[in-house]
């Protein structure tokens, strides 16, 4: 049995979530726009899910717009939040869906600025001030980074941005379900969520949007989601998202305690062992994420070696894993390219246990030792 340690890429769907979804495929399959009882039943199910998702992040139900996933929600925020967008600033470590949609609008003439991060992967107050001095109308900084797991001080950054009159978007795809989120007290206007990172199904996400934002829809025709996102609602997946959000809220503390104990155990053992670099270790991070490298072993090679012994990790974002190249997050943190190339990401999930940590440590130890004896041989 293999050990899955890539929960930041995707998570298996919780049994309870599947149970909640199933009836919406077979029995309650109506189109929520239908006026008859089957249609109304589907509509009610969506309303319930909207409440569950709103509660996960302490938002109002009217602020939840369901989308086809996190990428779509990020695209909608970047392209739709400001009617006449001329200046935009995003952090250098954003997910590809923010970076690429930002570059797409830049090709259409929008002035795009990148907000730098420090060596710990954090957007500092000074970097934010610098970015704001060019008066962007929209700022996007992710809540927690998918690769390094670094958590930003969004409340403070949003307040800074507010003082300049900029609209603030945060991609909270990786944060939701792993840390408490409060849309209202964070003071952001837009927040992206995804179901499949928190034991919900793929193919559904949400953009939480302050009602004062005049959001311009990117997908039109039919007028679903109050006109902000057309297309027949993915009822079963939305119901699954709602259930997953509810469970995530109920079990948040238990999960956090479990995940951080696994992370601490792994990091403690790796430190003792030596020969391993842990990125952004001093920063506030997600409880489940360890971004590490064995300098001297290429990340791709290392993860193939781990895969041979049944341990599944990734070399960074799943979305970019077709591309070969060092992590843009590490480069933005000022990590040398030669070390960045060695990075692998370990992301724990609910079902992992201490024995998974033991297996991983043993496998890494073997790699480090092999490397050391190889370099000794080279020395002789």
């Amino acid at each position, binding site marked *: 049995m293999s050990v899955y340690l890539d929960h930041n890429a995707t998570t298996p769907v919780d049994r309870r979530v599947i149970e909640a979804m199933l009836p919406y495929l077979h029995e309650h399959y109506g189109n929520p726009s239908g*006026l008859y009882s089957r249609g109304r039943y589907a509509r009610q199910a969506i309303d319930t899910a909207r409440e569950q998702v709103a509660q996960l992040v302490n938002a109002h139900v009217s602020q939840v717009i369901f989308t086809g996933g*996190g990428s779509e929600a990020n695209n909608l925020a970047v392209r739709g939040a400001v009617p006449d967008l001329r200046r935009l600033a995003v952090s250098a470590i954003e997910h590809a869906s923010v970076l*690429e949609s930002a570059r797409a609008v830049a090709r259409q003439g929008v002035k795009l600025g990148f907000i730098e991060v420090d060596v710990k992967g954090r957007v500092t107050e000074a970097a934010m001030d610098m970015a704001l001095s060019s008066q962007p109308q929209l700022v996007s900084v992710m809540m927690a980074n998918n690769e390094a797991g670094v958590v930003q001080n969004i409340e403070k950054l949003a307040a800074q941005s507010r003082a300049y009159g900029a609209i603030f978007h945060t991609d909270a795809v990786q944060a939701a379900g792993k840390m408490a989120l409060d849309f209202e007290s964070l003071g952001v206007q837009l927040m992206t969520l995804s179901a499949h990172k928190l034991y919900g*199904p793929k*193919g559904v996400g949400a953009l939480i949007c302050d009602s004062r934002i005049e959001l311009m829809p990117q997908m039109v025709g039919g*007028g679903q989601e109050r006109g902000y996102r057309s297309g027949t609602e993915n009822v079963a997946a939305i119901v699954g998202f709602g259930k997953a959000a509810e469970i995530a809220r109920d079990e948040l503390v238990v999960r956090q305690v479990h995940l951080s104990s696994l992370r601490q155990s792994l990091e403690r053992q790796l430190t003792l062992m030596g020969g391993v670099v842990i990125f952004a270790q001093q920063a506030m991070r997600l409880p489940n994420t360890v971004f590490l490298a064995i300098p001297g072993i290429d990340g791709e090679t290392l993860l193939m070696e781990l895969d041979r012994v049944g341990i599944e990790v990734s070399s960074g974002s799943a*979305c970019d894993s077709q591309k070969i190249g060092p992590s843009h997050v590490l480069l933005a943190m000022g990590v040398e390219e030669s070390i960045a190339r060695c990075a692998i990401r370990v992301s724990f999930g609910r079902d992992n246990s201490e024995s998974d940590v033991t297996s991983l440590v043993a496998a890494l130890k073997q790699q480090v030792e092999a490397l050391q004896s190889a370099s000794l041989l080279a020395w002789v």
Partner: protein
Amino acid sequence: MRQPIYLDYSATTPVDPRVAEKMMASLTMDGNFGNPASRSHVFGWKADEAVSEARQQVAALINADPKEIVWTSGATESDNLAIKGAAHFYQRKGKHIITSKTEHKAVLDSCRQLEREGFEVTYLDPEPSGMIDLAKLEAAMREDTILVSIMHVNNEIGVIQDIAAIGEMTRARGIVFHVDAAQSAGKVAIDLDKLKVDLMSFSAHKIYGPKGIGALYVRRKPRIRIESQMHGGGHERGMRSGTLPVHQIVGMGEAFRIAREEMELENKRIRTLRDRLWSGLNGMEEVYLNGDPQHGVAGNLNVSFNFVEGESLIMAVKDIAVSSGSACTSASLEPSYVLRAIGRNDELAHSSIRFSIGRFTTAEDVDYTIQLMKEKVDKLRGMSPLWEMYQDGIDLNSVQWAAH
């Protein structure tokens, strides 16, 4: 007999149990839940294989190359991507687009958005049969026309357009041809090796697959280009970013496989039921058929019951689930724009009901529906002063209504 009886298969369909089973196996830890973009481990590879198989199944139904299939979140996204994507890519060649007034809102609203960006759009009026007059289409084509978008089967009246002929016209002029096939796939044979269609939109939930998944066919030979409307990890060869929802994709693949194998037999059965329904309703007075069933898709029957208001009729026949038009617009009480476009007056458009028959409809369902419709229409007409005037032989068009 199961009640309420579902006769709204054009709005959405239940997921076929065979489809649901395959979907479930793509969700859990012991199943195939991985992210197909994860290239580094077996969970990702297995998910990627499942996606490839589904891509082949979808391509097989329409005789296309699997590499020509781009996954989307549904036909609405496919329509948006095709129309805005092609218009943006080819805008240097021209800024004129031709479509018809009876297209789905996803096409019409995408065109409206392009108009605001400076494109010019010609909206063709269909003939009373619902068909597009090819001579009128040809007359509308200009030097700067870059895109024609005509749906294959209309969602309200079920009429099938001659997309083979339109394809010849567009290809000869180097115009990109998009077809919304959300209502036709699995109901009408589609051969993209022969049809000169460049872009085609598909939906899963109209043919017993799940909601929230669709596809856009993008022709490779000759190669058609579109500008991506959703950016990110560069999935789907850069045309559509976002983590692929494996369970949904697997479900769509299975639904298309079943459709390919069972379409012919199923169509025969459904057509018989549809004809049975119409012959039952046709006995009533002042009943009008919208569209031309002989040239239409098997399961669709759109009927206007004169002197009865459509929404009240739907409420009166609660035991059957039908709609007064497209589901997407049924929340609004406007009369169907499709029926208006084929020349129906407001009264008849307002009194229309769309019955759509599907895989799980039985002869008993149809017979019950006929009986219920007769009963309720009679009852509603009994309360209608207009019906009384009509019965008395008064020509309602000659009545001078006094203002209150």
